[in-house]
Structures are given as C-alpha cells and as structure tokens.
C-alpha cells in the first residue's frame, strides 16, 4: 500500500518547502504521528486477527494435517475436510462472475460511451443503490421470494435436459430452490455494483483523443470500443472483476441463507451445496473443540484466499495504471 502512494506523489519534493516545515515543526510532527498511528492501527489489527485466529484454529491443523483439504466434513465422526466448502465457494463465485461481469461491463460502457451524462446520472444512482442493500436482505429475499420462484424454472430445465450428456450433469434433476446456482445469482446481484463502478471509472480515464482518433479513422462505435477503449482499460477492468470476486468469495449471510447447506461436491448446479463463509456462519453457534477450531480454520483459509486475490487484483490494476499513464 505504502509503496504505491509513495510512487504516485513524487512531485513537489524539490523546492523551498523545507524551511517552511522547520518553522512549524510541532503541529506538523503531531499531525504526522497521528496519521501514521491511524495507518499502522489498521495493519496491527489485521495482523492480530490473523495471528489469533490461526492460533485458535491450530487444533484443526494439527489434527488433520493435509486432511484439512479432505472431502468429508462430518462433525459426528470428527472428520473435518474443507474441500466441499472450498469447492462451493469457487463454484458460486464462478457463477456470480459469469453473470455479473458481462452485465457490469455493459452498464459501464453504456454509462460512459453511449448515453449522455445527464441520463447516466440516475442510472448510476440506481446501480449504487444495489450496493446499499444489506446482505441479509439479499439473503432473506433470496430464500423467501427468489428461491421458491426459481425452483419451478429449475424443475422445468431439469426435466428438459434429462438424458442430454453434459447438460444433464450440470442442470439435470434432482433440483432444489436453495442451491449453488441460486447462491451464484444472488452473489451476482451483489457484486454487480462494485464491478460496474470500478469499470466505469477505469473506462472514463480513456483519453478523448484516442477515441476521437478511432472515429477519425472511420471506426464504428463498437470498433472504437474494441480498438481504443478496451486496450486502455482492460487491466483496470480485470482488477475490478477480481475485487468483485473477493467480495463474492467472502459473502457470508446471503450465501448461508440460500445455498442449501449440504457439504457435497457435485457438478449439479441446481443441487444444494455449501461455501466457506456460509458454513462458518451456520455452524459456529453449537460448535466446540476441534469442530470449532475447524470453523475458525476455514476463516483463516478464506482470509488467505481473499488476500491472494486482492494482491493479484492490485498488482494488475497497478500495472495497468502505469501502462496507461506511460
């Protein structure tokens, strides 16, 4: 974090600022210490959380070893393999991205390249409103309204594809309203605002001269977008998508309510499953001993996964920014 901000603010270090700061050293020094403390506080809290949760999860890591990535999660027999939840997190996030990314980029392009600013503003408000809906509301709406409604559609699709090789495996019966797919759809709704607003800001930085140049060469709007906008903003958009992925992976209560809570690994997208944050939220209340340690351990794993995703996202966005400004 700090290296990036240092890189960006090189201007103004030279010149006669030094005597000024020496004249009022106390106020400046105090301000510097306060801001530094504020910055470090976040880091310290983050590290403390990582250390204590890892400590609390230690009995699980010790008891299972590499078995933490095992297939069986059965508290009744003290088997705590997390693979089903890792799988569920991956598959629901993938479904969410497949649906949210094209829509988000479409909206971002609509707002920046197609409609005028005055018309774009209300659309931006509506999209941002989606981000304001609390996740528990998404979850309750999902389980009380959306899941019962889409259940019928799943059933029709399921009976329609029965017997067709690949489709039967993915969408065939038995189907359930609370499933991987429902969770994926709800997550897609939830990450669309983030991906949209970040993509919009990235696309807005495309220099007008590039776009005008494309038009001057006789490009249509679509050709202008693929030829001028896309090369300039693809890094930033990939970063936006990865940040959306981070959000989807960590979403807890909405997923917990709609995913169906079954620790199974299956290609059936309409079947109930479970994800890492959902299982923590659902099972923590009555857990004890190794069971409790395993749930905290799932949190540590998720913590690690999201850090990796975010680091990659930041690296891509940072590199794209350097290329863009060069």
């Amino acid at each position, binding site marked *: 974090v700090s290296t990036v901000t240092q890189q960006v603010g090189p201007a103004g270090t030279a010149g006669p600022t030094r005597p000024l700061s020496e004249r009022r050293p106390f106020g400046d020094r105090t301000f510097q210490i306060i801001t530094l403390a504020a910055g470090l506080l976040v880091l310290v809290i*983050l590290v403390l959380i990582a250390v204590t*949760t890892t400590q609390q999860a230690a009995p699980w890591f010790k008891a299972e070893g590499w078995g933490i990535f095992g297939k069986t999660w059965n508290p009744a027999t003290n088997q705590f393999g997390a693979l089903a939840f890792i799988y569920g997190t991956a598959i629901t996030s993938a479904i969410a991205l497949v649906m949210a990314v094209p829509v988000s980029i479409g909206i971002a392009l609509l707002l920046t390249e197609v409609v005028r600013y005055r018309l774009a503003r209300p659309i931006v408000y509506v999209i941002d409103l989606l981000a304001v809906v609390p996740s528990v509301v998404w979850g309750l709406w999902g389980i009380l309204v959306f899941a019962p409604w889409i259940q019928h559609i799943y059933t029709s699709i399921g009976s329609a594809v029965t017997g067709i090789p690949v489709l039967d495996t993915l969408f065939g019966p038995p189907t359930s309203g*609370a499933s991987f797919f429902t969770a994926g759809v709800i997550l897609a709704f939830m990450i669309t605002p983030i991906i949209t607003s970040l993509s919009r800001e990235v696309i807005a930085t495309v220099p007008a001269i590039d776009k005008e140049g494309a038009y001057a060469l006789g490009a249509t709007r679509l050709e202008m977008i693929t030829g001028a906008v896309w090369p300039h903003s693809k890094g930033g958009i990939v970063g936006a998508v990865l940040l959306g992925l981070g959000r989807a992976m960590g979403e807890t209560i909405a997923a917990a309510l709609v995913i169906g809570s079954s620790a199974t690994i299956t290609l059936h997208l309409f079947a109930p499953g479970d994800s890492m944050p959902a299982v*923590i939220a659902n099972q*923590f209340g*009555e857990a004890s001993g190794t069971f*409790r340690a395993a749930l905290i351990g799932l949190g540590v794993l998720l913590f690690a996964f999201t850090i990796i995703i975010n680091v990659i996202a930041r690296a891509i966005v940072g590199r*794209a920014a350097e290329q863009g400004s060069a």
Partner: protein
Amino acid sequence: MQRVRSQGVVMAGAALAAMALSLTACSSSSTTNGGGSGSSSLSGTLNASGSTLQLVYQQAAIQAFKQIQSGMTVNYGGGGSGKGRTDLASGVVQFAGSDSPIPSDEVSNFKGKTVLYYPILISPITVSYNLSGVSNLKLTAPVIADIFQAKITKWNDSAIKAINPGVNLPGTSITIAHRSDSSGTTQNFSQFLVEGAPGVWKLGTSSTISWPANSRGGDGNGGVAQIIKTTPGAIGYVDYADAKASGLTFASIKNKEGNYVAPSVPAATTAADGATVKPDLTFSAIWAPGAGAYPITAQSWVLVYQKQSSANTTKLLKSYFGYLVGDGQKLLPGLGYAPLPSSIDQKAKAQLSKIGS
C-alpha cells in the same frame, strides 16, 4: 486511476476486516453493578448468552421478572449453546444457556472451576410432515432413521405402510428437511436415532449431521418449518413450539415401551420424569422409559460457576434462577415448552443455595 486504486485498497481492507471480525465477534461486554444490598429489592445486571432453544422462555421470563425485581436487568443473547459455554468460560457472561452438559473436550476451558447445572425446561421435538390427507401418521425410530438416511425415498414404502394399516399413503417422493445451522435440536434428534435405532442409524450424533445429498437445509426451527410447509412430501424435525405455530402436522412416535405417543406438553414432562438424573442434575430425556413418554424430548439448562466473586451477583443469580425453576415454570406450556417434572424441579430449587458457596 489514482482514485480507482485507493478505492480498491479501501474495499479490500474492509472486506478482510469484516470477514475477520465476523470470526472473532463476541457478545457485548458485561459488567455487574455493585451496591443494592437489600435482600428484598435487588439492583444490578446479569448478562447471559447461549442456547436458542431456551431463548423464547428467557425473553418471557425476563419480561415477567421485571415485575418482581424492577431494579434488576437480565440480558440473554442467543448465539447457540456452544457460544454460551465459551462465553461463560471466558468470563464475558455471568451464566450460560446450554442444551447439553459440557462436552469432554471443553472441560479444560473451565480450568477446574465447578459449574452448576440448573435444568429449566423440557421441549418435545416433533417429526413433522407435509402429506395432504394424512393426519395421523405413526413412525418408529428405525423407519425415521431410514427416511433420514434416504434409504426410504417414497411415502408408500412398505416399511411405512406396515406400521400405518388403513392409511392411504401416496407415492410422493420424500424430501428431507434439516437444520442448516448447527443446533441442539439436531443433536437431540440424532441422539434419539442413535438410541432408538441402533444398527440402523449410521450418521452418528452431533450438532451438525452429514445429511444425504439433496436434503434441504433451513435456518432455525422456523426455517425447517417453512420448508415442510411449502414442500409436498417433506419431512423434518421441528421443536414443538414452532411446529404448532406454523400449523404443521406431526407424527406419533413409538417409544421405548412400544407405545405410539404424539408430542405434547404432558408427554414431554413424563419423559423427563422417567430419565435418570445424575447428582449434578444432568440427564437425558431422550428415549426415556415411561408408558406415556414422548421419545424425542430435549432439555435445556442454565450453567453458572459455583464460586462467585461478588456477593451482589450471587444474590442476583439466586433470585433469577429461583424464578426460572419456580414461578417461571408456569409460563412454559403457553410458549410450547413443557415444565420440569416436580422430581427434578425440587432438586433444582434445593441446589440454589450452592451458588456462591
């Protein structure tokens, strides 16, 4: 670009912090006010957390208790029995609600200090189902075990027909509904299958069971009731209070003596009466003997340290616990719970003097 970048940092940070905080989130901090030494009128605060099974009773009892001791505040947060015991061990609450005695792997958390158990309520767990036209279904533990292991998948299976002569059972597929959250209700239901269907039930007993694929998970008793209510052919285990509130139909279950008994308040109290009570007042009313005993009967305790550092807290605890096992018992049938049988209630009252001694 700079703006995009800094937003990214904020969001990443917020996401991580929120995720981590959700793990370490604890109950609100607790303090006990000193003073208020009068024996008749007490003042101070008791904080507690734990079992969601007894949450409704605690809420009703706290309301009613306000009329008796207006200077006293009792806070009971739910969170589950496991959370309650953890909170008690770490000292953030003065007492905890739990549906089971302290498991062996948690004993070390209490550092050798004596924990007293006070049973406060009995709760029948129904096996509720959704089959139009069938209102008097009879089930046995082995048949329930096979249904919940997906070995019996149709309602007109010969095993169900054999114990329900004359009932017109449809060929509907069975949908299993279970708790998606870990729960004392799941623990007690699976314990019933372990004891009532030995050799048949293979999934063990725990607050979370590895259910067959394609079973449906619901959040809380209300969530399971919702699934049963909206899914034809569904069957699930729901506590008596929620099953009645949702208007579900429930089965009569064959008990240890071989009688089919429907869940009810008297049948649950009878089951607790037949249970073997240990000296520390722990017992299990599951699969208890007694001609009229309902076999899937759970119980809930409040847990407290025998040794108390503050004389005032001791008084507060004695006063409130005295109400829970005393006059508060009259509230239970109205809430869908069963009161303690007098044999156990007497022992709980007699043990009150142990707090703070």
